[in-house]
């Protein structure tokens, strides 16, 4: 029993309020789809584990696992409905509770602020590292699934690239589910470099189908499936000093940073 490997997924949900309020897609529905996806992953094998993170312009944190006293009290008071599977119910209630807590903190702001995506990825990576150590000597196959809605933020280029290389080293696949907005250059590269999948969702209201088909199979299953792979990966880099995505740039021969101009 202990010889079996653990499949661990970290789901990162981009909760940028500016983008969600502007889009026609309902956040509630999307969250429901993601919850069902998380349930299916957990149901595949009792060794499977999951963590869910959110990425917001002001903060980034766990949605699951995250215990708090108020949550425990609430769960204590409410009985589990007879139709809910124990594990599913715990995960779902925790995620929803933490989401509601987050929503109550939200204040209205005029200006667009980008989500702290790179911070969230770093957090997911450190958590995965902890999980790997916790279950030694069992092998942990981990993946990060990013449900992205924001456009690329060039100022995050360096940190995201660092995250990608770290994931590469730890053999963590990064799967990208691009839900809204146009293709993301950085995340395409992330999926390509870590041999994950990149899927641009054409019908966001049918998100669950995309999640089930492209993101549920683990790495060993993927070998036998014909998955959609990124046809064309945009390899453009961002200028290190101007934080702009450039078509043609210069690379410093010493530090390998890419620059828009030479001084």
């Amino acid at each position, binding site marked *: *029993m202990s010889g079996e490997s653990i499949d661990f997924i970290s789901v990162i949900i981009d909760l940028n309020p500016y983008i969600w309020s502007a889009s026609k897609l309902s956040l509630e529905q999307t969250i429901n789809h993601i919850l*069902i996806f998380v*349930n*299916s992953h957990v*149901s595949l094998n*009792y*060794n499977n584990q999951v963590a869910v993170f959110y990425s917001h312009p002001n903060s980034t944190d766990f949605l699951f696992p995250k215990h708090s006293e108020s949550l425990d009290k609430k769960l204590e008071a409410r*009985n*589990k*409905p*007879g*139709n*809910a*599977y*124990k594990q*599913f*119910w715990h995960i*779902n209630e925790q995620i929803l509770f933490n989401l509601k807590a987050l929503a109550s903190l939200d204040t209205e702001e005029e200006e667009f602020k980008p989500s702290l995506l790179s911070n969230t990825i770093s957090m997911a990576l450190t958590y995965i590292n902890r999980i790997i150590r916790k279950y030694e000597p069992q092998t942990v196959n981990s993946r990060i699934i990013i449900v992205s809605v924001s456009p690329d933020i060039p100022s995050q280029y360096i940190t995201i690239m660092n995250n990608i290389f770290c994931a590469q080293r730890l053999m963590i696949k990064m799967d990208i589910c691009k839900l809204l907005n146009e293709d993301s250059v950085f995340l395409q590269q992330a999926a390509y470099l870590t041999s994950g999948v990149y899927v641009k969702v054409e019908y966001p209201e049918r998100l669950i189908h995309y999640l089930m088909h492209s993101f549920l199979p683990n790495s060993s299953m993927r070998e036998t499936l014909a998955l959609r792979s990124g046809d064309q990966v945009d390899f453009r880099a961002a200028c290190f000093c101007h934080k702009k995505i450039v078509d043609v740039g210069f690379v410093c021969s010493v530090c390998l940073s890419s620059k828009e101009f030479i001084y």
Partner: protein
Amino acid sequence: MNVGQDLREKLKDSELLKLNLIQTDPMTNFSSLHPQFQTNLHNALICGGVNNNFGQQNEQPDKNSVDTKFLDSYALEAWESVLHYLVGTQSRKLSKSLLHLLRNSGLMDLKGDQLVITRKGFQFLLQDVKVQVWAFLLQYLDSATDLHMDSIDMLNFLFQLGNLEFGKDYSLEVLTDTQKIMLTELKHMGLVYQRNKKSSRFYPTRLATSLTSGQMISSSDSSQESEGYIVLETNYRLYAYCISPLQIAVLSLFVDLKARFPNMVVGLITRDKVREALEKGITAEQIISYLTSHAHPEMRKSNPVLPVTVIDQLRLWELEKHRIKAVPALLFSEMSGEQEFNDILEIAKRFNCLVFANKKDRSIVVNSEGGDKVKSEYRRIREERRQNRG
């Protein structure tokens, strides 16, 4: 269509097909999930549906509610009393149906008018509690047809039990009659707790809720002696910090116990004692895994947990038993000459049934399947030669 054919070939022996979860349409070659499984899986994933598949919790809190500690000790006591009965250190009388089960499963057998433990029973003792519980429940399911109970209903209940939450109370109202009968049975085994017969609620214990999970629960896991208690030294000396007669009885299966102190026993693992255990059908692997899973925390600090010398010796003692391998065979001897010997040897080799051959005293041994073939073939060759000569 070709792909479908391919897939069907692959699916032919698959577990899913055997479990009837997948069905293939012979006309179109399409495979699909069983519709009922499909809807139920769907319901489970979205936490919906109407069947209350995962147990109905009681609305009102229990006046006489019990805590997890009580449930643990209750389960332990009930299950250990079954095991105690098995090793014959029984203080409490078991229920009639449990005794019936013990006999039916071949763990105990009637000798005179007394039940005594069998070979299978000894093996049973060394297994993990969960394996033991499952073995028991399977036997119970098997005997269900004799008791005129619906085994599907019972299985349903068992899986439901595995999904209940430990420490919560559940209502009896939604259970079917079969399941209520089962409940009393499971109560005796320590899988569920019911305050008294009239109580309308029951509590699943850890034995029940871990039925469908992957982790093993070792017998002492939930009790005060949650840590292991066995210290084994390289000189085969074994110190066990235990007071329970059950644990001592299990240990005495393969350990020559020398002394008993208020809180520990001292023994020696000897060849005679281990061979005795092997005779009873216990394998060296079972002994090793038992010792490993109950090793004292101090022992766990080293890697490997048990001294290598002892493990190796246990395996060697087991191998001693397998020095001779018996094969049903046929012996050809007293042949007329070199020619005949070579002919038969040739044929035996051709049929791939040669077990042993000795050129010096001209004897050949072939296995029993090949015996007749070799005989008739040799007769044919001899006949052919004679005709050629003639």
